[in-house]
């Protein structure tokens, strides 16, 4: 009999962590992640999760603890939000550069200044180039399921994974979630095998200084230089697309739930208008698509599940036939446009897709976005295209720009 519980996103994440059995957890509280850090403390103190919990004095240290514990051979977990993630920035690069399969949750929240504790995705978007795999969840079921997949993916390609889910919208909202059973999870997720274990049995200095040129080891064999190592990180991210798709398939086969590999599609087959986004706003767009369909507009949704590595081939297939595309983003690359929008345009460059892309910056700092408003945005875009206006546009939704 399946175990269905009505729980918040943070509870789903906590249960996901428990099922994956990390040996070391380090976290520092920040809204809206705090409940996750608290629940994990309770699991560890109550003996439900056999792990060392390091109650660090800040997020930079939280990720450092994970990096070092992972280096001596332990599976690790951390979680944060917003300024906490920004505070980790240096260590995000360090973790990816060290090729450590760390899994963390980013409970998405706007970044200061000014302060906001509410949801948008500027925190994780601004860490896009740190070499982490980034997955965005659309509901609480996907959070727990992605956690289990994330460890499998990370430990296969030796790239850390950030599981992003929207603060409050998911983290504090209850919905029914099926909890996978531990035995099936153990089968799906083999024990962690580090690529290198730092130990007195095999003494070595890890992450020492490199020069621009390659250098030979004592046997005279030329070894990787900095650039080769960095290339390998990029190659691993490229390779991870297949690993992510396969993990999703195997997961679907084992647990009966398919969240899409790199992305998911909703009524896109015949869609003229495709709405897209990441996380809960993409889920909300499916409601908008239903409304549009009821009004006679052939609308569909593509939810970008994995933002890094970017699903460049998947998006060409998924969006290929659309006449118009609307990208809703809870973040922006300041001085240009939404980061997802830029990436989509780049992916379509040189293909047959000539669909104009309208970019809506929406929901910053928790500003409410209703399905109706997504519907209106979709209609406006489609009307512009049908009137022959083929230019790309960027707008701020529900923002009184004066």
């Amino acid at each position, binding site marked *: 009999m399946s175990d269905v519980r009505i729980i918040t996103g943070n509870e789903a994440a906590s249960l996901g962590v428990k099922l994956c059995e990390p*040996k*070391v957890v*380090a976290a520092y509280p920040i809204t809206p992640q705090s409940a996750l850090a608290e629940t994990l403390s309770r699991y560890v103190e109550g003996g439900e999760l056999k*792990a*060392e919990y*390091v*109650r*660090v*004095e*800040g997020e*930079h*240290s939280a990720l*450092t*603890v*994970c*990096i*070092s*514990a*992972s*280096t*001596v*051979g*332990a599976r*690790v977990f951390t979680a944060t939000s917003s300024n906490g993630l920004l505070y980790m920035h*240096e*260590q995000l690069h*360090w973790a990816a550069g060290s090729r450590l399969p760390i899994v963390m949750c980013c409970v998405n929240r706007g970044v200061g200044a000014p302060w906001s504790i509410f949801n948008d995705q500027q925190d994780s978007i601004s860490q896009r180039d740190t070499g982490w795999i980034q997955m965005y969840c659309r509901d609480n079921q996907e959070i727990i399921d992605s956690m289990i997949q994330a460890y499998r993916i990370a430990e296969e390609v030796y790239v850390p994974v950030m599981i992003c889910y929207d603060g409050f919208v998911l983290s504090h909202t209850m919905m029914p979630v099926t909890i996978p059973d531990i035995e099936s999870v153990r089968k799906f997720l083999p024990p962690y095998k580090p690529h290198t274990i*730092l*130990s*007195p049995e*095999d*003494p*070595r*200095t*890890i*992450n*020492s*200084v*490199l*020069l621009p040129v390659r*250098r*030979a*080891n*004592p046997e005279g064999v030329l*070894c990787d230089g900095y650039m080769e190592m960095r290339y390998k990180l990029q190659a691993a991210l490229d390779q991870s697309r297949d690993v992510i798709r396969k993990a999703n398939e195997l997961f679907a086969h084992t647990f009966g739930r398919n969240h899409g590999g790199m992305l998911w599609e909703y009524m896109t087959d015949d869609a003229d208008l495709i709405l897209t986004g990441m996380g809960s706003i993409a889920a909300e767009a499916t409601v908008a698509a239903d409304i549009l369909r009821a009004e006679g507009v052939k609308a569909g949704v593509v939810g970008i599940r994995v933002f890094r590595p970017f699903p460049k081939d998947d998006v060409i297939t998924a969006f290929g036939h659309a006449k118009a595309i609307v990208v809703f983003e809870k973040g922006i690359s300041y001085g240009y446009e939404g980061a997802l929008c830029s990436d989509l345009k780049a992916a379509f460059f040189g293909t047959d897709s000539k669909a104009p892309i309208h970019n809506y910056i929406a929901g910053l700092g928790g500003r409410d976005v209703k399905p109706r408003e997504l519907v209106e945005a979709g209609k406006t875009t489609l009307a512009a295209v049908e009137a022959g206006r083929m230019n790309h546009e960027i707008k701020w939704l529900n923002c009184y720009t004066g």
Partner: protein
Amino acid sequence: MKDNIFKINEKEYILPGSRACQGCGLSLAYRHLLKALREDTIITLPASCLCVLHGLYPITPVTIPTLNTTFASTAASASGIAAGLAALNKTDITVVAIAGDGSTYDMGIQSLSGAAERNTDFIFVCYDNEGYMNTGTQRSSATPLGATTTTTPIVPKQDNKKDFIKIMEAHDLPYLATTSPSYPIDLYDKFVKAKRIKGTRYMHIYSPCPPGWGYPTKDTIRIGKLAVETGIVVLCEIENGKFRFTGRSKTLSKKGKKLPVINYVERQGRFKKMSIEQLNTLQTWVDTRWNEYLRRAEE
């Protein structure tokens, strides 16, 4: 134990070919502390001269397993190693974090204080060469009053060095010690002792640096000794709150007389621009601390 150089572990853990400067105080200290810590040790270290000493990938002269970490994170890195080892039931390995004064006194103080407050089971070693040497002798908060550095090039440093021992003592640690490569047996014994103790142990190594301080490379040992003779450096231990002098500082405290700090200052280029007022302030600073220690030793 008798003060006998022959008791020191003969094995070398730094093979020939380190990238440190000639006459480097840190190298000498590192050699002896590794001898005391032996093989069952894991080290973590930040960007620093020690990172350079460890060599360029793929070759290192150091035969003890080592993890490089970022500048602010040395103690957190040790926390992670300790937690990982504990979780994997590898309890017989000593975890050691070693950082320069820059990443101890300045950027690393947060993670060090955090790890110490949690009484993380590790040894934190600060090798204090009184400046950011790796990046070219800039001022740190461990740079002494009156010293010229590349970021105090015209007006020599106006502020006293932080009393870091006091800061670490406020964390109620089971063991703190100061030592110097000029007294290798003192250094060796203290690390042997530290290794046997559980919890956070703080070791402060005063490490003369010829290029940074402006003295000939042959004088490293002498400068280190003068620092002790003048009371600039006090060799001591604080075990569960109990202070005691050790080695040469102990004999100085019993009989003998400290030399004036000028004897130490005049031998180093970095103090060339020091004013008489600064020299007097430094002397007062040293005397005040010395008297405080004398009082504590009698308690």
